[in-house]
């Protein structure tokens, strides 16, 4: 297990390094002075620009600049957001909580829903219901998620007055304790629904294929020949085998899921990373934008490694074969 872990870290380190370098290069694509990318367009106090210019060695050769840049990152120095009057790192971490609050329940819901739908469809492969599921997942892939969000707002918030359209809590009353929590949940419903539909499209597609694959495996015959009920065979033999690729795909698509959540947030004014992202675009708050890219990219790498570990925990074969090849 330790060697497997090391092998995965050996994969992650160069990827992280590459991400850092990409982020460094981004500074230099700003037309004009790269100092703009590090300070942003928001009025900064006089002298700050010169201080940053010195800290990042912008008058030095490129390699020195890269070295200084990495050094600053290592110190957790992602810059300062003047629009928010807050260091970038803290700002992003604070907002990331709200994104996760939206994203994780949606992921769980989508995983369950997608698997259940696939379990229902796969034994009847080729039927109209099964084709319907495939069509549905294609629709999910093609929906601009922010537009889906807008439609939900129009129907459920504006026309039907069922659910709140914007924000994370009611502004008119100050709630505390349980009622505060319920209020947040109430505001979570619509954005979570939008994100869930988006995720179900991926999960259902993969789950259908993997359930179909597991059903056609020979060990299913052995299980039936033992006299097990088809329900037992489906839940104890087919499902666990089918789940492995599903879990993997969910984990590897963490970045895709994150993107979905970020876009939905902008529609619902959910105060997470997406909202920070769009306001920072408006404010030309470049350090924040770069910080968001850097941290989400790192999160994706971590999610990938975590997925591999989970995969190894779920599938005894991987554990062994990875041992041999690692």
């Amino acid at each position, binding site marked *: 297990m330790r060697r497997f872990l090391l092998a995965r870290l050996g994969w992650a380190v160069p990827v992280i390094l590459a991400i850092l370098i990409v982020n460094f290069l981004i500074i230099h694509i700003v037309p004009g002075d790269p100092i703009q990318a590090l300070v942003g367009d928001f009025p900064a106090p006089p002298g700050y620009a010169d201080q940053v210019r010195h800290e990042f060695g912008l008058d030095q050769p490129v390699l020195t600049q890269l070295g200084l840049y990495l050094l600053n990152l290592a110190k957790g120095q992602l810059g300062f957001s003047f629009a928010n009057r807050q260091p970038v790192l803290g700002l992003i971490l604070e907002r990331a909580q709200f994104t996760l609050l939206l994203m994780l329940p949606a992921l769980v819901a989508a995983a369950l829903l997608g698997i259940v739908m696939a379990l229902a469809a796969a034994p009847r492969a080729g039927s109209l219901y099964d084709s319907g599921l495939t069509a549905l997942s294609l629709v999910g892939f093609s929906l601009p998620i922010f537009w889906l969000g807008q439609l939900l707002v129009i129907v459920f918030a504006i026309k039907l007055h069922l659910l709140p359209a914007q924000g994370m809590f009611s502004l008119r009353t100050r709630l505390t304790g349980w009622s505060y929590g319920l209020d947040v949940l109430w505001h979570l419903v619509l954005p979570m629904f939008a994100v869930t539909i988006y995720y179900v499209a991926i999960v259902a597609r993969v789950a259908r294929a993997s359930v179909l694959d597991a059903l056609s495996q*020979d060990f299913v*015959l052995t299980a039936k*020949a033992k*006299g097990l009920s088809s329900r037992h065979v489906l839940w104890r033999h087919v499902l666990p085998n089918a789940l492995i690729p599903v879990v993997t795909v969910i984990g590897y698509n963490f970045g895709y899921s994150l993107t979905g959540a970020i876009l939905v947030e902008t529609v619902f004014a959910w105060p997470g990373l997406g909202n920070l992202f769009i306001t920072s675009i408006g404010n030309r708050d470049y350090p924040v934008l770069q910080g968001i890219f850097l941290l989400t990219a790192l999160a994706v790498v971590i999610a990938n490694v975590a997925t591999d570990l989970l995969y190894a925990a779920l599938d005894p*074969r991987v554990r062994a074969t990875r041992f041999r090849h690692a």
Partner: protein
Amino acid sequence: MSREAPPILRLQDVSLTFRTRAGAVRALNGASLAVHEGEAIGLVGESGSGKSTLARAVLGLNPERSSRIEAGRILIAGRDVTRLSQAEWEGARGHPVAMVFQDPLSFLNPIMRIGRQIAESIERHAPDRRVEERVGELLALVKLPPSLARAYPHELSGGMRQRALLAVALACEPRLLIADEPTTALDVTTQAEILALLRDLREQLGMAMLLITHDLGIVSSACERLYVIYAGRVLEWGRSQDVFGAPAHPYTVGLFQAARADRDAQGRFATIGGEPPDLGETAKGCPFAPRCPSAMAECIQSMPGVTVVGEAGSHAVRCWLYPPAQDAAATAGHVFGS
């Protein structure tokens, strides 16, 4: 040869078709056989002859959506199982008839421990037993150490996997074990070990066995009687010693020649010429006729009845080279073993 008790398994004129995109395929065409308590029977044929389909039909394991038993009866301990619904089947598999399959790696669940896979059978068929203890007993029965209960299939060698698969089947406490090419995926030494184990188990447990194979050598050493199947039809059957001593059907003769790798006058290996039959045809005659060195006009027109050859009625064949006796129907029943 007639016995008192009803056979543990009897197939009577079973016909089974698969629906495929290319049209209907008749995988079994009036196949009959019988296995009595404690008996070891060989079912011999080339790949595609319908032998695995027959084995799976006994446990209702052919794909339910694309296969259909058109005619005939399958009696397990006297009970016709061809009319069972899917739900009824679920209760009927495993006991009194259990099955082991060909490729032990793909037929074991890769992410479930061996012990659990055996325990599932126990829980299904003998739930009062103390499961862990019983798993250990079964592993010992197939000569595996009890520690293997914690292992996953990929951690075992081919021979160990086949033993584990055997333990899964034995946990159902079957009176008949159907073994579908149980040694094909194994090397020669391991084959011999598994065959010896099967023989021991049969003696120890008094269990009948239907051994399905393309390998005549295995049948001669392990089986008391054998059936030769071709294109979904049983062409010849009888006591092993009789069939081996004097194979009657040209197809059987061809099989024996191929197995012994006899060389003809030019020093070439003898093989059965021609391609396996197209099962989609609804041809009337003997399915082997197109490849048969002794084919006659009748062979193409109709399928011959049953002829008893040799003494004591222990050996029978369906071939026009052996004109049927007058009371063919009566002898057929006799030879099938009732």
